[in-house]
């Protein structure tokens, strides 16, 4: 575990999601990284993060503790120091901290090591499974079985650290109140523009095939698809191109904005479906303040030259430099992708998420610099891991989707962080997908009602690279 790297990510996180006072607290505090055996013998006014205890990747001994009007979910507790003078805070059964008579503080669980493991893709490294698109998807994560995919471990660790820093700045013991230190939760809205016209060959062919697929299983044919095929033949932009404009106008209503990731390059079933003309046309409808980024084509996965060519083409079409991106189908390899994206000039990426479940793939709701194991330092790229994909949320939670989204956002409002989400134009308002109707509107209303701030990936990048 590289303490210097971890502390830098923590500082970046605090800069984005907490107040200036919180950043000063973190900077002023004596925070050390040490072996557990050494940590329990220290008798100084400091916070010590143990670096050497390996809890494995399967969560054990999960427990919840009330904290700052929410609940923290902790697992893999550290042993209580067997030296005199140490006590558990708030209690022995569900401790957050161990503290000794000299105000030396140690976290009561291996939360920082768990956060480190998730930030450095330990699950991807140690588990061999991949889906047909080459992705390490949510069903392979040991956290899924324990319902922990939606626990932002890193955010909870930072919130705990701030409580400890508050104590080091004068309080008697770390308490569970960091209310005055947290800024409003952030929502980072984005849209992958996979399809801008609904009359392309692949979309129409899929509709056509789906007319008959149910009957091959003894079910009624989906004849309604004829309607959508005819509709998009007459009005290609309806429910796709037009939805981009609709989404912008809807976001504007709440003072929000978003990023549109454009898919260009090679065509095909998984590739770009509408060509560059559609992108050139849509750019005139995207107002100042909204961002455009690159949706890395399916075939650019692990192919730098193709990615660079795609980016060059999009930059020429848009007439501006592109610095942000997300991979089509979220195809990503933790050992190679960050290098390739960096080489292509991407400064912030939003690909690291799951397509099968919502949740925090890196245990983080926000933005961080991935760790380059070979170089032993952070990559020169930021990652804003995708937490929520439109259809995934609704597939998973159905009628309860919005309530669930709200509870996740409220949790972030108590511990600090950003909800990174993607909503495709084709699912925003499309009677072909009745279960999705009104969902994005309700998501935006929830963001308004929770007083969320809206920052795009580029906004976060600007804040983090504009160092004082």
């Amino acid at each position, binding site marked *: 575990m590289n303490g210097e790297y971890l502390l830098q990510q923590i500082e970046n996180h605090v800069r984005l999601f907490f107040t200036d006072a919180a950043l000063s607290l973190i900077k002023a505090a004596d925070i050390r990284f040490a072996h557990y055996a050494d940590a329990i013998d220290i008798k100084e006014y400091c916070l010590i993060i143990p670096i050497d205890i390996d809890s494995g990747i399967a969560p054990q001994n999960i427990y919840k503790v009330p904290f700052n009007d929410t609940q923290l979910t902790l697992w893999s507790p550290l042993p209580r120091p067997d030296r005199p003078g140490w006590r558990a805070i708030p209690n022995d059964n569900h401790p957050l901290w161990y503290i000794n008579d000299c105000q030396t503080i140690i976290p009561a669980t291996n939360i920082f090591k768990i956060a480190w493991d998730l930030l450095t893709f330990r699950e991807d490294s140690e588990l061999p499974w991949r889906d047909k698109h080459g992705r390490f998807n949510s069903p392979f994560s040991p956290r899924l079985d324990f319902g922990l995919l939606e626990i932002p471990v890193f955010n909870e660790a930072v919130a705990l650290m701030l409580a400890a820093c508050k104590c080091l700045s004068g309080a008697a013991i770390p308490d569970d109140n960091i209310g005055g230190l947290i800024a409003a939760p952030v929502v980072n809205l984005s849209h992958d523009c996979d399809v801008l016209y609904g009359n392309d060959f692949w979309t129409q062919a899929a509709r056509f095939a789906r007319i008959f697929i149910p009957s091959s299983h003894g079910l009624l044919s989906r004849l309604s698809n004829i309607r959508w095929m005819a509709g998009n033949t007459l009005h290609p932009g309806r429910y796709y191109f*037009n*939805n981009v*404009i*609709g*989404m912008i*106008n*809807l976001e*504007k*209503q*709440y*003072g929000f904005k978003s990023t549109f990731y454009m898919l260009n390059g090679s065509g095909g079933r998984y590739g770009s479906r509408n060509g560059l003309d559609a992108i050139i046309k849509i750019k005139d409808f995207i*107002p100042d303040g909204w961002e455009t980024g690159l949706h890395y084509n399916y075939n650019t996965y692990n192919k730098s030259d193709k990615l660079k060519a795609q980016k060059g083409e999009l930059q020429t079409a848009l007439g501006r430099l592109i610095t942000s991106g997300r991979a089509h189908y979220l195809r990503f390899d933790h050992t190679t992708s960050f290098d390739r994206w960096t080489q292509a000039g991407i400064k912030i990426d939003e690909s690291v998420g799951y397509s099968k479940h919502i949740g925090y793939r890196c245990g983080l709701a926000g933005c961080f610099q991935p760790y380059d194991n070979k170089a032993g330092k952070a990559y020169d790229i930021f990652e804003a891991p995708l937490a929520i994909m439109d259809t995934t949320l609704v597939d998973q939670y159905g009628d309860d989707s919005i309530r669930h989204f709200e509870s996740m956002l409220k949790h972030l409002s108590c511990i600090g962080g950003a909800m990174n989400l993607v909503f495709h134009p084709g699912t*925003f*308002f499309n*009677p072909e997908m009745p279960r999705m*109707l*009104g969902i*994005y*509107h309700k998501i935006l*209303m929830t963001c*308004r*009602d929770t*007083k969320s701030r809206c920052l795009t990936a580029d906004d976060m990048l600007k804040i983090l690279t504009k160092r004082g």
Partner: protein
Amino acid sequence: MNNLEIRLIQPEESPAANDFYNGIYGKKRSLEQWQWEFAENTYDTDQILYAIVKDGSRIVGTQAFIPIQMIDPNGIFWTAKSEETLVDPNYRGQKLFDKMYSLLFEEAEKRGFAYVWGFTPAEKAFKKLGFEMPGKTSQMLFPMQYRALDKLMAKDREAERDVPKSMLKHLSYKLAFRISIPLSGLKLSMKASRKNDIEIRTIDSPPQAADDLCRRFIKKYGGVTIYRDGEYLKWRIFDNPYVKANMVGAFHDNTLLGWAAFSLGDDGVGYLVDILTASDLGNDPEIVQRLLIEAVIRTRDMGALALRGWSVNNHPFDKLVLNAARKIGFWHFDKGHTVVLYETKAGKSGVHRHTFDDFQITRIYTEGIMG
């Protein structure tokens, strides 16, 4: 209960007043939203015209006047919108409503407000206070999705308006609504394809020419309407903490000829918040039509179930809008809230005296949270 105190609110009491409202209605209005509605209007005063009844430390009644500027051929003058009429059910029958009004009427007279006005389903109570009920709002509706009908009926039930009770009537409503959607769509597509030299632009901040447009409007159509200068539009639309309505302007040679504001409500229904034109080119009907088409298309692309607007009286511009709306596929229903109007002594002795049909009214009259 004998020591009830009735007075104007102090700024530090706003959280309690807001909590009282949220408690009675089961809503989650934030303090920021309260502040916007009652304390941040364009009237230049330190005192919020918000009456409260206190029983000890508890607020048990509220009534607000929101100062609003209007314009007529004699100039700009102040009026007040009645809002936040609320008495704790345990304190009803003590004439608290009358007492709060009496206090606020006094304040309105002091400030020379010409009218106090509002929209309400509770006619009786207002009648007793001396309000007139000169008319009702009615609805222009552009149907877009079949699901809209359930929402609209639910709203009618909520507002205790007449809803079809018999199964047959209910079914006939559903059938008529289903037929109306393609009919309206057809009308719209026929009109939307016509080209003209009016340029429609999105307006992202209060237009500097807003004040001029209002003045031109009154000069052209007479009557009286809300004075929508940049400050007013900033307050009601661009700084609105609930929903910042989308605004589009009609331009010719860079001159603002008119605007429309519209939004998607929390219920998924689109609302035509405002529409105003004053063209010297004699093409107002054409401009109104273009603005309405833009409002329909944009709200439809935002996922709206339907687009609703108001038609209220015989003001020439109101009739012009209704006529244009019908041509592009809107339907007109006589369903709405009662308008209540009170002319103060200051108003009666002044130059800003009007009949109901003089008022050009849209949802920008601070109705609800849309504008």
